[in-house]
């Protein structure tokens, strides 16, 4: 891709776009916006391919660009994250009853609401650790912070979630 190879760019997109979309979707809580930002990330990546120095994993480099893009977008929008659950692709019911599907939908909504209430910094660190399984050092590289700061952000995020759930979210209670 650094040599301007279109097939390289397409291969990069095919390989990393799904993970980046999951990341931006959880950071922005808006599927349409997440798709747009993810696509923008890859466009930026093409223009900045020469800046990739190979020191970090490609995925980390992409996550870092995506995290910045999400922050920029949120700063522009200046509005609280929303949870347009209807925009989420509905998982196949696989013969389950309507009630089961509704409960799952409720749980997803509850998780998204909880994530949306975290601070931006906490959400970034938590999502990278919980949903992408990145080790502390990699998260630190992505977010440009120390490993200690990563742990602190994750810990505070977990504390916030515990407090929220202990207050009695209906979906949380339904799940436990």
């Amino acid at each position, binding site marked *: 891709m650094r040599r*301007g190879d*279109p097939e390289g*760019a*397409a291969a990069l*997109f*095919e390989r990393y*776009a*799904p993970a980046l*979309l*999951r990341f931006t*979707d*959880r950071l922005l809580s808006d*599927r349409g916006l997440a*798709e747009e930002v*993810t*696509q923008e990330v*890859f*466009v930026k990546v*093409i*223009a900045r391919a020469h800046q990739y120095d190979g020191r970090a994993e490609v995925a980390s480099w992409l996550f870092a660009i995506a995290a910045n893009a999400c922050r920029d977008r949120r700063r522009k929008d200046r509005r609280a994250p929303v949870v347009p659950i209807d925009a*989420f*692709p509905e*998982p196949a019911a696989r013969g389950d009853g309507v009630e089961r599907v509704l409960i*799952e939908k409720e*749980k*997803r909504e*509850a*998780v*998204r609401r*909880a*994530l949306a209430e975290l601070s931006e910094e906490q959400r970034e660190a*938590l999502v990278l*650790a*919980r*949903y992408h*399984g990145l*080790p*502390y050092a990699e998260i630190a590289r992505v977010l440009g912070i120390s490993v200690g700061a990563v*742990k602190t952000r*994750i*810990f505070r995020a*977990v504390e916030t*979630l*515990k407090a929220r*759930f*202990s207050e009695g979210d209906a*979906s*949380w209670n339904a*799940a*436990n």
Partner: protein
Amino acid sequence: MECRELNERAVDRLTGQISPEAGRELEAHVAACAACRAELDAAERAWEFLGEDPDPEGTPEFRRRGLELLEEEMLRLRVRRFRPKPRLRWAAQAAAVLLAAGAGYFAASRRAPAPPAPAPSAGAPAASPMPALGSDARLSNLSYQSVGASGRIGIGFDVTTRHTVEGSPADPEVARLLAYVLSRSAENAGERSRAIELVQQHYGAGVTPASPDIVAALTNTLRKDPNPGVRKKAADALSGMPMTPEIRSAFLDALRNDRNPAVRLAAIETLAAAAKESPDPRTIQSLREKAVDPSENGFVRARAASALKTMEF
């Protein structure tokens, strides 16, 4: 392990980054400390609950549009490389082209009378007529040969004499000379390119309207020049001129037939820009065909599709 260490150990455990030893210490501690046990349980439940949000999947539309955007961006970066060279350097090159072209043009059209030929010796056939050789004439492509058994020799050469033609771009003589250069005189791709750059700078919308001769020479170059770089330059020069049926037709031919994708892309850009101003059925049809042509280059296909999207029918 002490209670104050719980938070860090708990996070390490949740993220799967706890060492076996620290894990054992944590287990031992919460087995003996009900408060820490409750805290750890709550943290684990919260962590687990996050798993109730399944990974969203990208839709086919997201993938299609993403790849399309990438193609457009790659294309944009490639097109940038066609920027003209700095103006001063270009002007010097263009001047050289004009001078060389003027030489051929005027040498062919204004021959001075031949100098008096030497008196032939008795019985020997006269030499071929000697061309006019001015003081600044240059002989090139020399060749020597024996002609038959008579002992005569042949000396072949090209004669060029330097001339400079000056005039405003609107001057019909200057325009005619440029058209001549474009259509016949420039011998290599570099000279043809520089002649086109000269035309591009001085003729077009907002400057001097190009003469029919120049337009014809450029459309002919776009259709037939063997060098793709020259065809691309002709397309660029034509794109700066007001759209006419002749120019549109040349671009449509280029879009359909040119072997070089950069030329086809230039054709798309110009045709699409013109069609936005004044919709043209042939243009729209050609763009539609390109947008769905599976054998077409991905950039060209994507650009055709994206050009169609920007048009209002």
